[in-house]
């Protein structure tokens, strides 16, 4: 049991690419911390620095009270689960699970006991004598977990352990891993590019982009109060709508001017964004979650704007509408930029991740020249290509500085 501490950690690769910049992060003892970000944001590099697989360029990483910068992997007392599981194809499941213990020359009885314990815990007992290639994807995943837990290390490190599974299995294993971690109470750092995984599994979630840590918080806080445009756009599906807008000051009260309509901002809104009044009459970025967009007739009396409906996706429980309103959309660069190459170089064996939900949405939306996503109730009669009157729930609007992208709090 131990906490993990990053203090001003930098990672610069030999080719000069800066993969992690000035990262400071405290992972509490027993906590399940998820490092999330688009591929190539430096999250895997950060994890590998904890594992001792990547040298730390500057700053310190400590596990417990020990600075581990100069310790080899095996002296850090950690266990790691890899994306492709890294099971040894030539060894049986039992041998795979026992691998680390045997390397540490644990007594035979202890190894046997631990292997049995782990196998029972993970439902692997009937498969102990099989080779990895004779197992299903989920079973392989569990073997990889088993190999980590038998060692009873101070810290678990998991590098996208579920991304090679199909969607259904992923949901199941998500819960299993989270449960396992709760039972064991071992400090865990879990890397993923999937924000749903991050939100559902993590005690806290750390969002990274381009090598920089953006925000660390509980999942709901991330959703409700994103620290900047990037977090706002990255967390949540469909992604938050963001537009350039201005806030007008009218005596004591503030109002948002968007697409020609004027939305009065309630008092408590001003309280949550005390700096907002300083930005009056200036260009800011406003963020609106899709679920905070409503059809105008459902909210009589609210100010409304007109949007042309470019695409509809009926999901049964709701329908997602893609509209075009008269406002300038602010795009958030979620696609990898320069630092990504660094991670790609560091891990050449890793394949490109599958396209993510948010990519697909962006793709679909752009082809119909839409700039706003809204979640409508089911069975609402909406016609493609027609103008739809919509309104916005101003209680949950987010405001960001147009220059820095920081939330105005």
């Amino acid at each position, binding site marked *: 049991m131990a906490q993990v501490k990053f203090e001003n950690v930098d990672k610069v690769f030999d080719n000069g690419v800066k993969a992690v910049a000035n990262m400071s992060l405290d992972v509490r003892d027993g906590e399940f911390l998820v490092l999330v970000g688009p591929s190539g944001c430096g999250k895997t590099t950060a994890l590998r620095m904890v594992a001792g697989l990547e040298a730390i360029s500057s700053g310190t990483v400590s596990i417990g009270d020990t600075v581990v910068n100069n310790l080899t992997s095996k002296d850090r007392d950690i266990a790691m689960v890899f994306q492709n599981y890294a099971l040894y194809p030539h060894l049986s499941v039992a041998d795979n699970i026992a691998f680390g213990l045997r390397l540490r020359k644990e007594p035979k009885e202890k190894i046997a006991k631990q292997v049995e314990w782990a196998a029972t815990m993970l439902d692997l*007992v*009937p498969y102990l*004598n099989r080779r990895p290639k004779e197992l299903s994807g989920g079973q392989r995943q569990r073997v990889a977990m088993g190999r980590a837990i038998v060692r009873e290390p101070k810290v678990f490190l998991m590098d996208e352990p579920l991304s090679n599974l199909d969607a259904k299995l992923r949901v199941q294993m998500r819960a299993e891993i989270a449960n396992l971690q709760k039972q064991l109470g071992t400090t865990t750092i879990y890397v993923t590019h999937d924000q749903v995984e991050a939100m559902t599994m993590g005690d806290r979630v750390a969002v990274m982009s381009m090598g920089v840590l953006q925000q660390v918080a509980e999942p709901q806080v991330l959703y409700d109060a994103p620290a900047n445009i990037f977090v706002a756009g990255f967390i949540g599906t469909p992604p938050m709508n963001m537009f350039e807008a201005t806030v007008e000051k009218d005596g004591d009260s503030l109002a948002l001017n968007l697409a020609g309509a004027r939305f009065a901002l309630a008092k408590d809104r001003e309280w949550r964004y005390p700096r907002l009044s300083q930005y009056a009459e200036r260009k800011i970025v406003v963020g609106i979650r899709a679920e905070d967009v409503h059809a105008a007739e459902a909210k009589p009396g609210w100010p409304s704007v007109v949007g042309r409906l470019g695409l509809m996706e009926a999901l049964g429980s709701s329908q997602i509408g893609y509209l075009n309103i008269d406002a300038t959309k602010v795009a958030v660069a979620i696609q990898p930029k320069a630092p990504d190459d660094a991670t790609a170089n560091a891990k050449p064996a890793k394949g490109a991740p599958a396209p993510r939900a948010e990519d697909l949405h962006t793709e679909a939306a752009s082809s119909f020249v839409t700039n706003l996503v809204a979640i409508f109730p089911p069975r609402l009669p909406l016609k493609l290509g027609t103008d739809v009157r919509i309104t916005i729930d101003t209680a949950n609007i987010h405001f960001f500085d147009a220059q820095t992208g920081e939330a105005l709090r």
Partner: protein
Amino acid sequence: MTGQATSDRISRSDVSSTYRPSWLARLLSLFSGTGGLIVKIVLLSLLNAMVGWAVIVLFAQDRIVWALGTLAVLGVFDFVYLRPNKLLPAKFILPGSVLLIAYLIVPIFFTINTAFQRYSTSHVLTKAEAISTNIEQNVVQGEKFFLMTPSRDTSGALVLVLVDDTTGQTYLGRESGLEEIDPASIQVDEFGDVVPPAGLTALVGDDLFGADAELAAFEVPLEGGGAIKTEGISGAYDSVPGLEYDLARDVMIATDTGIEYTDNGRGSFVTSSGEELVVGWREYIGFENFTAVVTNPLVRAPFLRAFAWTIAFAASTVLLSFTIGLFLAKLLDKPKFRFKRLYRSLLIVPYAVPGFLSLLVFKGLLNDDYGLINKLLPFDVPWLFDPWWARVSVILVSVWLTTPYFLLVCMGALQAIPGELVEAARVDGAGRWQVFRKVTLPLLLVVVTPLIIASFAYNFNNFNNVFLLTGGGPTSSDQSVAGATDILISYTYKLAFEAGKGQDYGLASAISIYIFFIVAAMSASGFLRSKALENMK
């Protein structure tokens, strides 16, 4: 408990805490901790002991530089393997590197160095060695003649009792030198035979004849050069050097005629009229070996002939083999073709049999007088005797050996061509031949071209196929080293190793380097095609 998969329905009690690691998993502990350390120390000690001993021998032989060099290599080994957790790559690379340097890289540099030297049968020594050898070998008979009585002293060593034929002066000739003695100390017995002084026993009868060979090799060295040599079993004469070396002027002078031999700068002593002393020495001669291929008609003709034949041999072998292999592969490339596997197995028999055996067998089969092939044919073909037929034989046998390889390659490549492409072409109205020409062959060549080039480069130096079948023969009309079927590599081999016409290491090395550039160029083109370089990230 380990090993293959067992049934799904193993109950929990079956596997309860009886886990035992498999032998593969045990490999791990074998090379860790004390086990690995002991292995390492034992191996390293053995190495140190053996190399250390070699170093002592080297010192004893006064080869100081080599001794120190060897010691340095040993030091590198100890340094690399005894430093904990450091120099990791070196630990893995060192054994291979040392072998590579000793038996591949050093020889390459030696070869390059040799190519710039006059280095042949009569030019293997250093200049100093050549001078003394010339002096030793050029001895002329002096004016003296001795009557000789071979004797042995008490230790059994041979001693010659000598009486000067003209002066009557008496000597004892030992291996260490000549000693003059009082004529009175020896007597002549009633048969006219010499009785040696006390302590020596004259050899008589069988002893004398038995010592014949020993006597012939026996020499009594004289002060100031020369020696007394035996003649038969009862006579001896003195011999004096026929040549003298004048250090100051660096010339050899004939003692009798006074003719001077000067250093010609190319490893020989020659007179002004061009007469050369037999024994020369190694000498750097610049690019002469390389240019000889062009300028020296005695070298040019065989070189160019061997070169042309090498190209013809390699090209026809590869092209014929590829064509036949592709043709057979195409015949077999049909779904549900009967006996496909049997046919393939039988067709690759020549590939499975060691090549040198097949070549030697073919040598017998093609024998002009007794060979089975000529017996089976209604007429006699001079397979190995006639230059042109010998060339045909070499190509045919090489094709026989190479075709199975291309058969395998083409079968694999044909399978890899997507069926849809062929079907699409058929639907578009292409005939069989057109489909083959326009679709199958181009796709196949993409895969096979690098292999064809590699095979060409291989056959370019296919020493075995030529040497074991024909020995490079039959001898060509110009009586040069290169026979009718000699490819460059076998020609080079003969230049260097077959003493019949004098070995010429310098020329052989120069031709070697030509071959290197040719092969490197071919390999480079094949390599670039195969794009193996892309995997070098």
